[in-house]
């Protein structure tokens, strides 16, 4: 078996999922190269923060500490340059959603071609509604990577399972019923923010398509579309905001004409 980049991606996802046990365990020996979790991480003293949590604090208090500001900007910079790679390479729920999609009865469906727009409207309504009731924008309480983090942490610190853990299986059921990655596409507020960040630069890391090499351009759905976790068409000339640069289509295409590749390129 040849080692493809989707194997590297899967390994990366698993490593992150395991790090929630590994980091506090290693910290227990007073080795503090990496401390914290996905909500607030520190690597060699460089802070990384959950950008959605940072925004939530900012909109509730109109102020933000420097550590979190820098941390959130660093995390967003990754999305600005690479697109929402967090979703496909890091997010522990992304791993669960990917594996869920391997189940034979879970269909890959592209219900709304503009899932991000649908989500933006829902999130907007939720935030305005909460604001009208004088609640802060509690979006991070709907963040599944956040709840994975808190579950592992509560388990580690007090040996109990927090109630929010049940959001994970609930979202998995939604994924099974509504088609793969349903939560990620139509509910997750975190990925919406990362998708928006991915639209900032005109040139960024993306999937590139060379029509002259394409040998299955007549087929619809083509093998690359069928391999996309989100059911997108990688041959579109415009970057789709939902594309997470997971690279599954590129690996699939390498069995055909190698018309797809990843690299820096313009959006249009």
């Amino acid at each position: 078996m040849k080692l493809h980049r989707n194997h590297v991606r899967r390994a990366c996802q698993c490593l992150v999922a395991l790090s929630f046990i590994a980091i506090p365990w290693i910290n227990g020996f007073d080795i503090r190269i990496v401390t914290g979790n996905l909500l607030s991480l520190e690597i060699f003293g460089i802070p990384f923060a959950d950008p959605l949590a940072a925004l939530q604090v900012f909109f509730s208090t109109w102020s933000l500490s420097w550590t979190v500001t820098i941390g959130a900007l660093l995390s967003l910079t990754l999305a600005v340059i690479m697109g929402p790679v967090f979703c496909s390479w890091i997010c522990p729920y992304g791993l669960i959603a990917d594996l869920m999609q391997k189940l034979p009865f879970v269909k890959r469906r592209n219900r709304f071609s503009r899932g991000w727009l649908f989500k933006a409207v829902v999130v907007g309504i939720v935030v305005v509604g909460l604001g009208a009731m004088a609640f802060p924008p509690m979006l991070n309480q709907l963040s599944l990577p956040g709840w994975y983090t808190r579950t592992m942490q509560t388990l580690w610190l007090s040996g109990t399972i927090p109630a929010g853990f049940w959001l994970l299986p609930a979202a998995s059921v939604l994924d099974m019923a509504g088609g793969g990655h349903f939560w990620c596409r139509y509910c997750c507020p975190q990925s919406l923010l990362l998708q928006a960040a991915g639209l900032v630069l005109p040139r960024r890391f993306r999937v590139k398509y060379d029509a002259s090499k394409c040998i299955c351009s007549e087929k619809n759905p083509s093998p690359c579309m069928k391999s996309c976790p989100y059911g997108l068409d990688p041959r579109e000339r415009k970057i789709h905001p939902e594309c997470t640069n997971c690279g599954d289509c590129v690996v699939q295409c390498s069995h055909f004409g190698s018309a797809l590749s990843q690299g820096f390129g313009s959006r249009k």
Partner: protein
Amino acid sequence: MSSTQLLPPGAGDKKRFLQNCIHCGKCVEACRFDALKITEGLNPMTAGTPYIDPEKAPCFLCMHCGPACPTGAISAIEQKDADMGAAFLDKNQCFTYLGAVICRTCFEKCPMRNTAIVLENGYLPVITDQCVGCGVCAYVCPRHAITLIPRERIHEKVRSEA
């Protein structure tokens, strides 16, 4: 939720604290004495935020949680500014005041000994207005003569005594 539940030292006003907390749990990891616990339940405002149940484990004012907090929800402050609540001594219950035995347990264990608790005439414990409400004295008192009142309920206590 227990009635004497406290917020971490440096949390200040509860509303401000909850708005700033991102539920990352770093304060709980930093707590040397397992005083900080993570709030359970489904209330999205409080679930995942830290609290102290001084009846199970009081705060020893080690002040490690403030520097661990990334958002400043818990400010990095000194012991004297912890402002978590206040302890009240019932002289009718205290061994020393009753004349049974010179106890001094609260005084010895107080993290702010000689400031928050002083000994009047060298043996009678008096809780001063410097008390920040860590709960250690109430926890160690063999006679349960000390009541701890959390920050947000101090005004009720003062009103009921006035």
